[in-house]
Structures are given as structure tokens and as C-alpha cells.
């Protein structure tokens, strides 16, 4: 048996040694262009892949794309370290990009690129740039809710009149981004008061936006806080469904625009090609495609918003400056948890 133990030790040592030895094979190529790049995309395949195919057809650059959940792809990049095969990352959550930027994993982008979008839609240190946006709305069941009862502000929802009627997704990235924006605007104390008010109202919990939209459509819950395009999809699948988007006034916190952003990794050996892809995504024709296909807001200045949603220009609360919050999303998650809104 002691032999076996020794063997175990040797094997374990071998694995640790093998890992330790491998850490110095970092390569950095000069020039920064390549005939093929790898993209990790938190945006779904059927939206992004046709665009990547068009990019390849136009430029001759081959693009390999891995699709997944934005947060989990960020974890993957973080764990891969400098050996990451990814050149470009596309994330539905600016928070995930902020985390990677904070760890020095994102390369600064050129001014030509970042100046294509408004100041609110890019990182202040130019590590990532917004590609498209979606807006927070109150989705409601038109059979159950009188339009006169709809709130004028997301802050009204803590009123006892809304008790048990408004669904939230406290674990969802978009809700967390929204709470982070609220911390920016109101400070932590007032944000906690709002969250506790929602908790006191027994706001039903759901895991994500689409689940809330489905529940509102069924009539399981009257209203919910979601991003605007989920209900547009639900209506396409079943035009008779009773769920309707209520857009809050442009200056309300509840009408936050959440950015889908993209960045080039600092470990990429083809940063110039990566940047070329981002420039192409912000070109007017690609931005028009985004608006038509997904009903998301194009972020490039001068490209029209999709039909059926309010124009983007009027919205005062445009995006979140994560730099203002020392603890970033960790603090937001702690605030959400301590409020008791999670049930």
C-alpha cells in the first residue's frame, strides 16, 4: 500500500510540474494581423454567424467563433490566461468586459473605432466599445393590467399598490446592470431602499428575462422588469399573446440602455485584425442589419433605431460608468442579496 501512496504522490507531482513548466510559452507576434481570428461570442450564433460570414466574404479573413454565456466566456478567458486562443470577445454584459479590463486582459482600442459611438457607449479607457443596445422596459399583460395603472417611473414600483405584481430576475446580468446604474445615480443607500421596497412587495423571482416574458404572457404574473426585445420575439412566435412592452420616460432610471460590447484581447497575436472586425461591426450597413434583425438599438451615430421603439437620442441614462464604483458588480450583487429581494 505504501507503494501505491508513493505512486499517487509522483503522479500528482507530475501534473503540477507539467502545468508549471508550461507557463512560459507565451508568444507575441508583431504586426498584429492574421488571416484568421477567433471570436468568443456571448451573443447568439444565429445573429452573429451570418455577420461573421459576410465579414469573411468581404475581407478574406477567416473567423472561428465560440458561442456561449457572456459571463462564462469571461471566466474562460480569465482562466485561459495569456494562452487564450481568443482574439475578440463579444459580451452581452458590459460588466463582464469591465472585469476583464480590470485584470488587464483587454487591449486599448484606437480612437477611430471608439469615436464611432457616443461617449456613454464605450469604456472610458477605450478597452471596449458598444456594438448594440437594448432598453429596459416594464412588460405587462394587457388582459390583467389597466394601462392607467402602469408606472411612470421604476421607482414607483415599491408602492404597495404593486405588491406581488412585478416580476424581477435578481440573478440576471441585465438586472444587475440596472441596479449598478441606480447606484451610480442614487447612491447605495437609496438603491438599497428601493430593493428592500421591491422585496417587501414580494416581487416574484424568475431566472431571466425570457422566463418573465413567458410568465407575463401566460398571465402568471402581471408585470415584469425586462429588456425590450424579448417581448418582440414572443409576439413573433405567437401574435395573440397578451404581453406588451411599456416604455418608461426617457429620463427614468428604469429606461436604462444596456450595451452589448466587444473588445480585443491583450493576449491576441492579431489585434489589428480584431480591431478591423469591430470596425466592420460598427459600419453603417452592419449596424442597419442589427436593427432590422434583432430590433436592437444600433449604437453608431446616425444609424436609425428599429421600428416600434422610441428613438435612442432622448434617453438620459445611457450607460453605466463602472469606474465610478470601486467594487463594481460585486458590490451590486451584495446589495441585491442583502435587500432580501431574492426569494
Amino acid at each position, binding site marked *: 500500500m505504501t507503494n501505491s501512496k508513493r505512486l499517487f504522490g509522483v*503522479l500528482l507531482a507530475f501534473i503540477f510540474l*507539467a502545468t508549471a513548466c508550461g507557463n512560459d510559452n507565451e508568444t507575441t507576434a508583431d504586426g498584429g494581423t492574421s488571416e484568421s481570428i477567433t471570436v468568443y461570442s456571448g451573443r447568439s450564433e444565429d445573429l452573429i454567424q451570418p455577420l461573421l460570414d459576410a465579414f469573411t466574404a468581404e475581407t478574406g479573413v477567416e473567423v472561428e467563433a465560440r458561442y456561449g454565456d457572456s459571463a462564462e466566456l469571461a*471566466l474562460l478567458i480569465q482562466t485561459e490566461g495569456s*494562452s487564450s*486562443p481568443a482574439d475578440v470577445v463579444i459580451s452581452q454584459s458590459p460588466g463582464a468586459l469591465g472585469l476583464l479590463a480590470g485584470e488587464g486582459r483587454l487591449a486599448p482600442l484606437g480612437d477611430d473605432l471608439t469615436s464611432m459611438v457616443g461617449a456613454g457607449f464605450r469604456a472610458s479607457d477605450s478597452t471596449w466599445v458598444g456594438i448594440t443596445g437594448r432598453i429596459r422596459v416594464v412588460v405587462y399583460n394587457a388582459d390583467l393590467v389597466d394601462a392607467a395603472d402602469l408606472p411612470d417611473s421604476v421607482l414607483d414600483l415599491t408602492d404597495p399598490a404593486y405588491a406581488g405584481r412585478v416580476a424581477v430576475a435578481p440573478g440576471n446580468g441585465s438586472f444587475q446592470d440596472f441596479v449598478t446604474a441606480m447606484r451610480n445615480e442614487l447612491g447605495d443607500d437609496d438603491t438599497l431602499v428601493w430593493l428592500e421596497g421591491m422585496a417587501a412587495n414580494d416581487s416574484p*423571482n424568475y431566472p431571466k428575462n425570457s422566463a418573465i416574458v413567458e410568465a407575463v404572457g401566460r398571465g402568471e404574473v402581471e408585470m415584469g422588469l425586462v429588456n425590450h426585445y424579448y417581448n418582440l*420575439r414572443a409576439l413573433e412566435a*405567437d401574435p395573440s399573446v397578451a404581453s406588451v412592452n411599456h416604455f418608461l420616460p426617457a429620463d427614468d432610471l428604469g429606461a436604462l440602455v444596456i450595451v452589448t460590447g466587444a473588445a480585443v484581447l491583450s493576449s491576441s497575436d492579431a489585434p489589428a485584425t480584431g480591431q478591423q472586425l469591430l470596425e466592420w461591426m460598427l459600419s453603417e450597413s452592419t449596424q442597419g442589419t442589427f436593427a432590422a434583425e434583432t430590433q436592437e438599438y444600433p449604437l453608431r451615430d446616425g444609424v436609425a433605431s428599429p421600428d416600434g421603439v422610441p428613438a435612442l437620442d432622448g434617453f438620459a441614462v445611457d450607460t453605466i460608468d463602472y469606474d465610478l464604483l470601486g467594487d463594481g458588480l460585486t458590490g451590486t450583487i451584495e446589495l441585491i442579496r442583502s435587500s432580501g429581494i431574492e426569494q
Partner: protein
Amino acid sequence: MALNSSSTPAPETANAGSTAPSVADPGLRPGLALAVVAVGVVFLSPFAYVVWRNVDLGTDLGEIIWDANTVHPLRRSLWLASTVALSAAVVGTGLAWFTVRTDLPGRRVWRILAPLPLVFPSFVGATALLAGFATGGLIEEILSPFGIDALPSVRGFRGAWLVLTLFTYPYVYLPVAARLSALPPSLEESARLLGRSPWVVFRTVVLPQTSSAIWAGVLLVFLYAVSDFGAVALLGYDTLTEQIYADRLFNQPRAMGLSLVLGGVALVVVMAERSLDRRRQQVEVTRSREALLVPLGRWTPVVWLAVAAFLGNALIGPVAVLGFWGWRGLTADVETVGLSTDLGALVGPTINSAEAGLLTAAVAVAVVLPVAWATARHRSRLAGAANAMVVAGFALPGVVIALSLVFWAIDAPLISAWYQTLPLLIVAYVLHFGAQATRAARVAVDAAPRRMSDAAATLGASRTRRFVSVELPLMMPGLLAGAGLVMLSTMKELPATLLLAPIGFDTLATEIWNAGDSGALAQSSLASLVLVALSAVLTWAVVLRRIDNY
């Protein structure tokens, strides 16, 4: 004969060989010992990663564990897992007995259908259940003309318990059915000749002889329920996995600390089950050709209806909901995102899912067999430890398993060349699902009596020849049951597939997720249906046909 209790084993069924040394068996040959150690080390790697991350991030474990935000979700996780394990044990064992050992009409069809609910990814199952049973769902619409306009809520504990029971009982069903099909009918026949009712026969003869298989399944159900995220999230039951999910990116010390707690819970449960298992008497069986069937008599319609009603909820209901969504897309005049369908796009993922499932099943069984062998035959402590690592790996979230492989493989010489290729993806699957094969393999080894091998040895058969021609055929039903479980789980696996699959290697699970994520409900439903159909075909072709000798 031992009709009344397991405490009075018939002399020839006691496994004399395996009761003697309770410490490490001196007969563990170096080759076997090496294999066991290698398996143990590989399966240790995800835990080593979690421990290392906790140290690296400076996690304050004490503070995390005693926090009310941890204690309550942990309590809910344990309560959910225990209740699901209990109900799955009852349902899985009952179904196995009715479909294998009674004259239940249509039992061959039931036998193919019964394992299938396992293949629903739990988020798909929960979505279908909600669409059917939730407030405003399909059932309520159907019942509303009859004056029933409010079903009891399926959200929270009730819904999570129901969904997990409906979709995990095959973990019990498969090993128990395999065990029953290998049991000699002589005891049951004797009991019946003595005029015992089917229920008495079941309780006094069948139950004692299948308890090892039942425990094997219950353990898997418990660990699955503890680690499940999809169902509890959709049904709004805040367990430990929900906390890990919410913290996974922006509060990594806590997420990693809670993952360690989850791994610790798994290890405790595995060791507790193991010590129970040690005290259980090992019943040897020999395979017989014809198992006689217990006549259900006047109970036939009742049992038939109960089986039909249960499988209706676990399989036919979800399939009907998915079929409705898919059909709505296929027949739509106007094609929109929600209704767009492309059956041709499912061909590649179907092939990839089958390939990954079959390869993983074969590798997993081959990898865990030495551990199961050393555990069952030699009662080796070393193998016991390796076995604990293998089984506990099932309780870690898939993302954690995937990240641990990224961590160990990306910069390692030799291995790094395999990064994000099929071989390494299969390693991830085996790490996550090896537990399902090892418990079934353990049952299989129990089914290959040592005395038969000894008899062959006295006739001059070599060790290899004895293994191939005597033991392997006896173990086959159990091994195939384990392989079947691994195959079904692999085909629905999502988080590790998304992170580690070769780029372009789409599976049906990633297709379900991709389409669902972009709101293409019809396409997502069709992919789910193809996954169920593929699972049915493969389960029958690989597992059932060979277990039952149809």
C-alpha cells in the same frame, strides 16, 4: 431459502471471498493498483482546482459557510435532494419491477420509454412543465371549460421536486432493471408457489436483492439534485447552485467557496453511502435465460394506468409541449425568429451528439471499471478513495469541471495540444459523469461471482481469458446500464460543451440552447425532440437490446 429477510443469506449466495479482508487487499496487483491511482488522480483534479482557487483568492470559508445567505440555500439544497432521492427511489424501483418482472401489458414498450426522461436537459423539462402546468398554462386552458381555473402553483419547492423526480428516476430505474433482469427467478417462483402475493414477493425477495442497485441510483439522484441549476432556477427555488451561479463572475471567492461546500457535501454523502454499502450483504447471482413473470392479475389495470400516468407526465407531456411548439413553427405561413425552423441544421449536431455520447460512454466504463473492480473484489481502501473522487465529481457544477480542465490543460506540455479538441471534451464529460458508470460498474462486478472465475482458473484459464470469457459477459448488463446513463447525460450536457468543444462542434444540446437563447422557440423545441428520439434509438440499440436479449 431466504424468503423473509436479507439477514439470513442462503449459504451459496454469500460472497465468502469478499468478506475476509476489510483493509487493503494484498492481492491488488500492481497493474490494477496503478490504474486505480491514475483514475483517482485524474478525478481529483477538479477538486484540486477548486481548493487551489480558494487558496489563491483568499476565500474566508468560515465566513461564507456560516452566513445566513449560505445556510438557508444549503438547507434547501439538502432538503430538495433528499426528497427527490426518496421519490425517485420509489418510482424507479417500482417501474423497474413492473416492466421487467411482471406481466404488465406493453412492458417492452414501457422498457424503452422508461429511461428516456433522463435525456431532457432539466431547463427544457422545467420549461415544458411550466408551459403545461403553470398558471395560465396549457392544462389550465384545457380544464377551464370544466370549471377548474386555478391549478396549485408549481413554482418553488413543489415544482423543483416534481421536475427533478420526473427527470431523474431513471438513475434508479436503469441499474435496478439491469439487476432484476439478471436475478435468478427461482426464489420468486418458490415464493409464488408458496402462495405469496406479488407485493410480498417484491418486499421479501426482490427488494433485498436489488438494494445495492437502488442505493447506486439514489446516490446519483441525490448528487444530481444537489448540483442541478436549470430546474431550480426556472422554478424559483433558491438553492446553493443558484448562489454559485449569481456569484460566478463577480464574486469569485464566494462562488469557489460554495463550490467547495458542494464538493464537501458530495464527499460526505458518498462516504456515508459507502459505509452503509459495506454493511450490506453481497448477494451473488447467476444469469438465467428465462425470467418468469409475476402475474399482476386483478391489479393489472391499476398498475397499467399508474405507469401510463407517470410516464405521461415524465415523457409524453413534455414531448407533446415541445411537439406543439415545433409544429407551430413548421406549419407557420410567416417565418419570424420565433417560428423559424431548419431541420437540415440538426443533422450535424445529431451526429456530433451521438459520437460524443457513445465515445464518452465507452471511455467512462473502461476508466471506472478498475476502480469498481478493486472496490468490489478487493475492498481496497485506495480504490474506495478513488471511487469517492469519481462519484463526488458529479456534484460539482459543469462550469467548474470545465474551468478546472482549462486550468490544468491549457499550458501543460503534450496536453495543451488537445485543448478544445474532442479528446479533452470527452475527458471533461468522463470527469463529470464517470460517477454514473462507476456505481453501475460496481453493481456489475457484484454480479460476476468470484467462484466462477476460480472454477475457470482451476481448469487452467489465464487471468485475461477468465476476464473476457467468464466475468465480462456476466458484468455486461450492469456495465451497459452504466454506459447508457453516461451516454444520456453526455448528450444533454451544456456548460462544459460550450467552453471546451472544438469550434464548430455543435451538439443538439448547444443547438437547443443557441436557438432558445435567441428566442427561436420552434427550432429549440425541434432540437429537443431530435435529442429525445436519438436517445431512444441509442438506448435501445446499445443498452436495452443487449440487456434483455429481446
